[in-house]
């Protein structure tokens, strides 16, 4: 930058404004460049450390949050049963019709309608003899066939005749129907008019499995939107009401609420910022110029993250912008110290050691996230460090060219002088008092009742109790799988996983009989292992043997002699077929049922057993263990991940504190000044913790990261008061700057603190408290008495 020679000459007001607008235009251009490179991802896993335990691995690598978490539960109510049933069918057809498109939001749409024959493509139909358990206990001899054929005669005389007759020639033992029945969920709700209804018969029920994981807000949003669109189409002109619950639906709703609240708060904040700056500097240009470093910081931060990482996480952007909001302070310091007779460049130069020290130490503090080993935190570090540095450099090297060189001197304000005189009467806090306050705060932190840490991620995004109750009710009615517990069985390939899980089926049936679980579902229910299929194959009679048995069974019976030729042909085909594998199922409805429960990776496979209405996890865990499997508690896994995560953040924070102190030491080089500058910040951190703990707030990660933000603010205030020294006019200007800074920040975060979203409340409360404490403590500790050498 070669501004120093040219820049010392003040420019005309018009030219300054034109330059400011040029800067704005350049930012807009930069935004156009950065925007397409920013791919927002909502994958929470990027904010998680690497998993270690099997449950954590399953949670992070394979599942997201378990088979239950992809499930959306729907109920249609408010009309007659027949209408609701027809709408349920129409909704299902419409949602599955979306499969033709590129985006397939749904894996499975179940409403109780039979999978029926359509589930099995014709090429796979002979496989019914390998999939159905009939042959496990039965041979196709003449006795069995005669019994079956007698029953079929009765079937032809029954109202079911029309349904059964087309099946009979190839399938006289009705294996097709047995399979269709077996594939229905184990404890499905009652079926009325062909679809599931609740026990009272008032609501048609559907269970929809999405492709997107439960924690993928955009994927879930797309699914929820598709469901609403389809529902609107099928329910036109009726009074039908749609109830939609499930983890995905909740995350969409909470995401929407968070976005609405955050944008409302953001709008109010912008107005407040503009208004405050306008009042403080009595210039409409102040808000414009004050906003430029912030906008530059945001864009530079985003650009840096987009360049350095694959995708920018949504949380990085939201949280990052909150954290770099602090750069609003930089121009404010410049404005407040600018006065007639001093070149803006000189003002900026004079402020730079202080501003630079503050920014550098804060940057160092955030940079410690780079060693956290968590992708999301690293993104946050890059974003904030680049953002803060950009804003500081812009304030130092660009802004002086644009600001009004001779504004009203803040030191001349009579109001400020009165304020200062009042403050001057405050006692200064000495080391003893500070130690006492620190001790009391530490005691509160240590001994306040209540849980210290909050590990339950769900508590950060609370679902309204009414919606939770509705979800629990629908989950109970539908027998939907538990979102918390799942049995996992690891094997070296799909075949071994299927074999092992088949061995567990009997024990699981036992658990269901005892009422320990309401139901279970596993891939082997749809696709037996190749070993089992071969065993059944071996029991199929040879062609001549079957013909003889069939002839024997049909002698004297009601059926025509050639009625079952197709049966003989299908059995012959089944005898030589190679066992069905998951690959053969691709494209059939069975694939959807199996692939969520049988996870295949290179050289590794995991079979899952989804459980519903689990009443005794310990009993299930014992059964799982006895079969070489494991009952995973996904809630516990996610909590342990959070705890592990926090440990890393705490280490990063400790490192940040040391580096921050070192940076300040390097800048000030006087033990006494260093102590004085760091004391308000350290004391504030203790006081914030004491207040939060005192009010029974459980601390989470957002509190921790907000503490750094508060510490950064405190450091700035203290550095500037320290910089003002004992000169009254400088002290007044600094007071002016710090009052404007702290007011804008306080208002922003106090608003956040009133939010109904716990994440926003955690950030807002922590930082608002931090601003208040830091401001007061900086005055009490750092400010020097006028004209006295401290």
């Amino acid at each position, binding site marked *: 930058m070669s501004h120093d020679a040219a820049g010392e000459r003040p420019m005309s007001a018009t030219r300054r404004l034109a330059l400011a607008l040029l800067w704005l235009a350049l930012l807009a251009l930069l935004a156009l460049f950065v925007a397409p490179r920013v791919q927002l991802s909502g994958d929470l896993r990027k904010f998680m450390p690497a998993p270690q335990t099997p449950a954590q691995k399953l949670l992070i690598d394979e599942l997201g949050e378990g088979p239950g978490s992809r499930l959306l539960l729907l109920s249609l109510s408010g009309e007659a*049963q*027949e209408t609701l*049933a027809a709408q349920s*069918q129409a909704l299902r057809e419409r949602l599955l019709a979306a499969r033709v498109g590129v985006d397939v939001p749904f894996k499975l749409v179940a409403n109780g*309608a*039979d999978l*029926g024959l359509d589930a099995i493509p014709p090429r796979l139909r002979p496989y019914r003899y390998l999939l159905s358990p009939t042959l496990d206990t039965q041979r196709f001899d003449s006795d069995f066939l005669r019994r079956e054929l007698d029953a079929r*005669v*009765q079937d*032809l*005389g*029954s*109202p*079911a*005749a*029309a*349904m059964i*007759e087309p099946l*009979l*020639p190839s399938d006289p033992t009705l294996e097709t129907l047995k399979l269709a029945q077996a594939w229905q969920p184990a404890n499905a709700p009652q*079926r*009325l*008019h*062909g679809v599931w209804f609740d026990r009272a*018969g008032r609501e048609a029920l559907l269970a929809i499995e999405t492709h997107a994981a439960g924690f993928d807000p955009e994927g879930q949003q797309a699914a929820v939107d598709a469901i609403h669109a389809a529902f609107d189409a099928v329910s036109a002109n009726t009074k039908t009401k749609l109830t939609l619950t499930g983890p995905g639906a909740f995350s969409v709703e909470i995401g929407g609420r968070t976005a609405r609240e955050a944008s409302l708060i953001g709008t109010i904040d912008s107005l407040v910022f503009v208004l405050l700056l306008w009042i403080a500097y009595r210039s409409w240009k102040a808000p414009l110029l004050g906003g430029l470093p912030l906008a530059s910081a945001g864009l530079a931060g985003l650009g840096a993250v987009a360049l350095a990482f694959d995708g920018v996480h949504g949380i990085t952007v939201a949280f990052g912008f909150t954290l770099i909001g602090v750069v609003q302070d930089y121009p404010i310091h410049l404005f407040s110290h600018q006065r007639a007779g001093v070149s803006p460049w000189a003002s900026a130069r004079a402020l730079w050691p202080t501003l630079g020290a503050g920014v550098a130490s804060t940057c160092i503090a955030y940079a410690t996230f780079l060693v956290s080993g968590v992708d999301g935190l690293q993104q946050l570090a890059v974003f904030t460090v680049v953002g803060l540095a950009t804003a500081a450099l812009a304030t130092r090297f660009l802004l002086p060219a644009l600001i009004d060189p001779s504004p009203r001197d803040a030191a001349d304000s009579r109001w400020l002088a009165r304020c200062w005189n009042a403050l001057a009467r405050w006692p200064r806090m000495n080391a003893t008092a500070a130690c006492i306050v620190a001790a009391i705060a530490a005691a509160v932190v240590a001994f306040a009742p209540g849980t210290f840490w909050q590990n339950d991620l769900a508590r950060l995004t609370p679902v309204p109790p009414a919606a939770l109750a509705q979800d629990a009710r629908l989950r109970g009615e539908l027998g939907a799988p538990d979102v918390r517990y799942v049995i996992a069985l690891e094997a070296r390939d799909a075949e071994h996983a299927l074999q092992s899980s088949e061995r567990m089926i009997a024990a699981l049936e036992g658990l269901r009989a005892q009422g320990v679980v309401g139901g279970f579902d596993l891939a082997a229910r749809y696709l037996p292992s190749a070993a089992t299929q071969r065993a059944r194959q071996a029991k199929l009679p040879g062609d001549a043997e079957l013909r003889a048995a069939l002839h024997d069974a049909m002698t004297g019976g*009601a*059926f*025509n002699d050639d*009625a079952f030729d197709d049966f003989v042909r299908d059995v012959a085909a089944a005898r030589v077929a190679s066992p069905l594998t998951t690959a053969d199922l691709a494209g059939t409805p069975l694939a959807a049922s199996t692939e969520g429960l049988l996870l295949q990776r290179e050289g590794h496979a995991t079979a899952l057993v989804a459980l519903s209405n689990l009443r005794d996890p310990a009993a299930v865990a014992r059964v799982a263990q006895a079969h070489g499997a494991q009952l995973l508690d996904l809630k516990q896994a996610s909590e342990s991940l959070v705890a592990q995560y926090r440990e890393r953040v705490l280490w990063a924070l400790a490192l940040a504190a040391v580096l921050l102190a070192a940076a300040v030491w390097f800048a000030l080089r006087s033990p006494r000044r260093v102590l004085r500058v760091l004391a308000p910040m350290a004391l504030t951190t203790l006081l914030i913790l004491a207040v939060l703990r005192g009010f029974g707030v459980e601390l989470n990660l957002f509190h921790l990261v907000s503490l750094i933000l508060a510490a950064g603010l405190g450091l700035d205030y203290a550095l500037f008061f320290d910089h003002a020294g004992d000169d009254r006019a400088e002290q007044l200007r600094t007071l002016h700057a710090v009052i404007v800074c702290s007011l804008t920040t306080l208002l922003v975060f106090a608003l956040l603190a009133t939010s109904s979203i716990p994440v926003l409340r955690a950030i807002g409360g922590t930082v608002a408290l931090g601003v208040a404490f830091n401001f007061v403590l900086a005055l009490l500790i750092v400010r020097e008495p006028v004209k006295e050498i401290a």
Partner: protein
Amino acid sequence: MRGSKLLKAPLRLTGEYRRPDADTLVREVRSPYAETTTLRAGEATIERAGQSPRRFSLSRVPELAGLQNSFGALLGGDHATIEAHYRLQADGTRQRWTLTMTPKDAALASKVQAIVLNGRGSELRCIQTRAAGNGDTQRTLLAGAAQEAAKAADAAALVALCEGAPAR
């Protein structure tokens, strides 16, 4: 009586239809074996002695759904319900009348060509359900015709009986 190309001869079953309440139709077979079918709320339940009941949805068997609607309405004398589901055409004399019901619903029409009711005076004697595809006809003889059917020797005689001829 029901015919099928798989069978050597049409099946002959006797029993009773009951309508315990407005939404339920019970079909009870007494001979040659015992079987009870309950049609209710779009679902059919078939029970046989010594077997667990089988349930299936009427939506898979539209002719059954049609049967339940129309038969229930017939037994209950609910003219409006019948007209909502079928086009009606009456023929014959009071002593030997025919009411042909052609389904309006496309799903039902694809399975059932027509349901023909034969009667004598105030007596409904026979319900013939003509399948759409193969023309198989299922005949349910009722009231007087059912009693006379016990004496009928062969299928042809039953058909004649159904269509209103006096017993031979």
